[in-house]
């Protein structure tokens, strides 16, 4: 117990000027870079860099369901696998799926499923594979951002892109897009995923203690950030496809 208190004393999450350990303000996001269509063999793919997070997502489908008994007669089956590479964290992570990974796979799947027109593809399945190459807090939100772009890249009909961001609580104050240290030593973590155009919330988790006012404030903060990320997602998708359309025009 003593050791932990020493660490929190050494690591100052927030200084007197309201600047965080990595030099950001409380309402500042990390830099985001999204690339679309990075994998040749997958139907759709995306790569995201969100601060130090590096995540690659591949999407397959719609395709025949195996094993057959899992097929749903009125809609498509969504399968999602979130996996962290052994080198993604400072200690080697065992490559076997941990409790956390299995749970996050489910959470991400449930965040993406409302956006997909699953009823258009009965008796088929859509597979989403998320590989975390480097993790630094907020991998689930970064994964959702990349996965929705990869789904769009695969040509799967979507209601909207799903965009996510985490709000944390450090030293009693709300902070946008928390990183690894803030997640570990902070007071709370609240990932939120939304379909920004439709205004639907598809993921809302919270870990730590938040008052109702804080939740409302956090939600407003998240909404603002989500629109920013949505623009980046849109830009990434359009930049790839505008190029293709131009190439087709030249060939015509």
């Amino acid at each position, binding site marked *: 117990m003593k050791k932990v208190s020493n660490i929190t004393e050494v690591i100052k999450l927030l200084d007197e000027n309201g600047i965080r350990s990595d030099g950001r303000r409380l309402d500042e996001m990390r830099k985001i870079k999204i690339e679309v269509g990075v994998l040749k063999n997958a139907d759709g793919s995306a790569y995201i860099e969100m601060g130090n997070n590096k995540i690659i997502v591949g999407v397959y489908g719609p395709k025949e369901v195996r094993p057959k008994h899992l097929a749903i007669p009125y809609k498509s089956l969504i399968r999602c696998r979130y996996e962290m590479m052994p080198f993604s964290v400072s200690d080697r992570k065992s490559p076997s799926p941990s409790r956390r990974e299995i749970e996050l796979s489910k959470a991400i799947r449930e965040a993406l499923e409302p956006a997909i027109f699953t009823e258009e593809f009965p008796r088929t399945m859509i597979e989403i594979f998320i590989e975390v190459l480097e993790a630094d807090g907020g991998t689930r939100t970064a994964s959702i951002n990349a996965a929705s772009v990869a789904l769009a890249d695969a040509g799967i009909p979507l209601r909207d892109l799903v965009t996510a961001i985490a709000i944390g609580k450090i030293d009693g104050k709300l902070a946008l897009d928390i990183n690894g240290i803030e997640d570990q030593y902070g007071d709370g973590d609240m990932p939120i995923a939304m379909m920004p155009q439709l205004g639907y919330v598809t993921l809302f988790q919270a870990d730590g203690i938040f008052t109702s006012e804080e939740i409302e404030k956090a939600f407003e903060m998240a909404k603002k950030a989500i629109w920013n990320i949505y623009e980046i997602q849109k830009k990434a998708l359009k930049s790839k496809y505008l190029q293709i359309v131009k190439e087709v*025009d030249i060939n015509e």
Partner: protein
Amino acid sequence: MGKDKEVVVPGEKLAVIEEYLPRENVYVNVDFILSKIIGTIFRDNEKKEISVRRIKELSLPKVRDIIYGVVTSIRDPIAYVDIIYIENRNKIFLNPFDSFLHANNVSSMYVRSLYDAIGYGDIIRAYIVDGYNPPYELSIKGREFGVVYARCPLCMRPLRRKGYELFCSKCRKKFKRKISTYYFLK
């Protein structure tokens, strides 16, 4: 015609419902017409229709696709076929799609039994007549469609074409099949 070659992403607002009729790859949410997929907008101002055209095709087989499949079981009058390849789009499926072939769709002439047209384990060249999702309905009507590769059920040797029948050179036996002009062992 409207402004073409404008790329839109899923969920992007294209128009208000009063402006256009929603057609392919768009959907209506409350007051707006939104895009379902990534593609280019197509506005038909004469018919007042709006649609989004795909840039990337889905890998699902479609009606009128020419496919290669393996006969996995025959239960007269239906045979079950695994689609392994789409010829016109050059797509291989390692995870094959399910389809079925009814005796009605074998030939324009009368077919007494499916066993006269195909055999278990045969590779057939067929086209999809119905179904937007698995299982697809196949047809082998036409000269180019039918069995393209078959083995002898007794000795498992590849059968050779002899006239309108298939022949096993070892067993000296003939087998009835609906043979495609693409049958490759002459």
